[in-house]
């Protein structure tokens, strides 16, 4: 088990103590690490009926067996918990340096439990962890917090994962921010951190990571890195960032516009695109530690109301705080992105919530008085920026919107659910399932609600094949057949990536056999392609069992009404996925009942018998 450090930290904030415990290598083999291993731990330790913001919920920060090795994109980490936004499973991933620097302290993960009675942060160095008073930094924004803690610990190299004011106030869209503007964004992990009075986890590991295979692993990693760096993916993302998705996505209909009502906005998409960003405000490419793709943006706006210098927005942010709101002001989106980073809120859900508010305003369900005097008209940049602040500060209308569109629609009533675009309470990210039909089954069944990182099957509709998993030819994006299988395979493989804790961009360049080769060397135990795919399937099924225990049923596997209404323009005009048909196929290939419950045979096949005898699954039978 060379890839692992072999130890977990357990931090009980109620008691103020820290203990070490050995990693169970038998379990690690079946769940790999990262989100997979956390699934097993949370399933066993967090009862399904736990209030996500109570001390009984647990918050795990996890790395994987390849974290910090020569394999590219392995500076990442996963934050795992029961989500306060959705009430079900949550793992959120981030990159930068934190994952690498944490693992090199000598631990594979941290289990945070209980809640402190005063603000604290964790300071972790080689084989050492301590709880420190955070009273002086409580209230600081997420970027200032990182500087403050680095000064306090006296280590300019230290990497800090922290919450901003939104997490402190338990805004349900609050995220965890690290290494300037990197975010474990989705599902409200920042609110869980805030509920525990945990402001930050600062790390500065310097230990060497033992990695399996030695020279063979080194050569394989180098070969993979060279291939990744030379690929068209790296050319595109390196030159123009993930924002390049705007440049072409408006043609296919992938880019959401006006709260998903409008099928295309060519001019706005191009003004917000990566090519335009490169020509105007891009100061330089930026990269996570050890990544050859360099998709991150460092931007500089030298004058005007949005003058700034720092991390630039990604595709999702450009779409959700841009086109979705009919806002084509690139500099204003950069400013909104920076505000979200400082408050520590998820840009995807924040954009979704503001779009919902603008439509509610248009329909007369919200008034100017409700909005504190703001004119919530489409594209009103000042209103967008003010709403970001209100959400981050949990003030005024922001208090409602910060609970996500599902809760906001329930409180507003009068049919507002019809334009609340979420699945299981999670706002839908910026890939339209009417443009790529496989995303329908994927969103409907994803373990954390609407998500493009727990399965991104549109890759199969763009030409990716995975013969070992049954995807043998390119799917048409509007095909009726095969979408359930595409969603299943993509989710299983994404679970593997989230458990290895590698970037989805790198994962998309791998096949199961390649993953098996790396895991065999990194973990020091043999993996076959089938082992890899089974591990992914095991993790997804255990997450499903957890979610069933939380009260989810097959009836929750659905798309929001808005995404079942065709647009009249764009690359998806007139197209609507047959979700019921897709789900039937999805449940069948998963080995689940028609009601969406894993069968006894599937549970036995995956070695999950323990999960059906405990308290989690008996809650729903």
């Amino acid at each position: 088990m060379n890839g692992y450090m072999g130890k977990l930290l357990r931090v009980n904030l109620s008691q103020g103590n820290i203990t070490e415990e050995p990693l169970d290598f038998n379990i690690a083999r079946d769940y790999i690490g990262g989100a997979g291993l956390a699934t097993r731990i949370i399933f066993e330790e967090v009862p399904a009926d736990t209030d996500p913001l109570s001390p009984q919920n647990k918050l795990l920060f996890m790395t994987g067996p390849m974290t910090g090795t020569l394999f590219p994109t392995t500076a990442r980490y996963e934050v795992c918990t029961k989500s306060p936004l959705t009430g079900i499973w949550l793992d959120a991933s981030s990159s930068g340096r934190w994952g690498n620097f944490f693992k090199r302290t000598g631990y594979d993960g941290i289990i945070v439990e209980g809640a402190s009675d005063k603000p604290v942060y964790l300071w972790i160095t080689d084989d050492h962890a301590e709880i420190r008073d955070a009273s002086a930094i409580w209230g600081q924004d997420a970027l200032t917090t990182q500087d403050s803690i680095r000064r306090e610990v006296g280590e300019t190299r230290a990497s800090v994962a922290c919450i901003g004011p939104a997490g402190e106030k338990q805004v349900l869209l609050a995220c965890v921010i690290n290494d300037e503007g990197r975010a474990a964004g989705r599902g409200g992990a920042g609110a869980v951190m805030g509920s525990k009075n945990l402001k930050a986890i600062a790390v500065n590991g310097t230990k060497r990571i033992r990695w399996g295979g030695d020279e063979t692993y080194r050569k394989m990693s180098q070969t993979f890195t060279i291939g990744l760096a030379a690929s068209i993916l790296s050319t595109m993302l390196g030159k123009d960032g993930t924002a390049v998705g705007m440049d072409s996505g408006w043609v296919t209909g992938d880019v959401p516009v006006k709260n998903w009502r409008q099928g295309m906005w060519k001019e706005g998409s191009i003004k917000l695109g990566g090519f335009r960003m490169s020509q105007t405000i891009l100061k330089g490419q930026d990269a996570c530690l050890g990544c050859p793709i360099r998709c991150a943006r460092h931007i500089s706006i030298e004058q005007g109301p949005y003058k700034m210098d720092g991390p630039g927005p990604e595709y999702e942010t450009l779409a959700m705080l841009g086109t979705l709101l009919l806002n084509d002001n690139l500099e204003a989106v950069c400013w909104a992105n920076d505000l979200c980073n400082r408050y520590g809120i998820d840009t995807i859900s924040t954009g979704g919530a503001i779009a919902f508010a603008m439509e509610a305003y248009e329909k007369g369900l919200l008034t100017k008085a409700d909005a504190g005097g703001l004119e919530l008209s489409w594209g009103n940049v000042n209103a967008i920026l003010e709403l970001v602040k209100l959400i981050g500060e949990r003030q005024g209308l922001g208090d409602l919107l910060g609970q996500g569109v599902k809760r906001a629609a329930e409180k507003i009533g009068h049919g507002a659910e019809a334009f609340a675009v979420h699945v299981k309470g999670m706002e839908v990210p910026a890939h339209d399932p009417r443009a790529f039909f496989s995303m329908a089954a994927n969103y409907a069944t994803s373990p954390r609600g609407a998500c493009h990182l727990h399965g991104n099957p549109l890759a199969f509709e763009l030409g990716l094949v995975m013969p070992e998993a049954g995807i043998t030819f390119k799917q048409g994006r509007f095909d009726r057949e095969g979408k359930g299988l595409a969603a299943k395979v993509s989710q299983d493989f994404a679970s593997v990536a989230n458990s290895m804790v590698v970037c989805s961009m790198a994962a998309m360049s791998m096949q199961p056999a390649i993953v098996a080769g790396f895991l065999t060397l990194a973990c020091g135990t043999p993996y076959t392609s089938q082992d890899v795919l089974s591990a992914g399937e095991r993790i997804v099924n255990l997450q499903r069992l957890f979610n069933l225990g939380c009260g989810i049923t097959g009836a929750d596997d659905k798309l929001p009404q808005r995404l079942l209404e065709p647009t009249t323009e764009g690359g998806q005009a007139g197209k609507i996925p047959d979700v019921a048909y897709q789900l039937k196929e999805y449940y069948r290939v998963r080995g689940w009942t028609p009601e969406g419950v894993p069968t006894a045979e599937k549970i036995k096949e995956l070695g999950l018998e323990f999960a059906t005898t405990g308290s989690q699954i008996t809650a729903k039978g």
Partner: protein
Amino acid sequence: MKIRVNFLGTMERLAGQPNMEVTLQDTSTLEDAVHQIGQSFGDKFPPDIWDDKREVFTHRVKMFINSTEVEVLGQTLQDGSEILILVPVAGG
């Protein structure tokens, strides 16, 4: 006949220009247009989007004729047709 080719996003960056005009014989097909594009820019396109032997784009590239997505290279073109060429991204 004359047709217009628009390169989007990364394709514009690779081609070094946003568009080009292609002159073809009547009854020409999309494949004929692609061959001409390749003669001008094939050496600028990396192998994962350009098949140098067959002188066609790989499956990574999507093409639209007058805003309609096309998968078949044999589709005939009309005078004034507009072709969009792009490389979609599956993520971000």
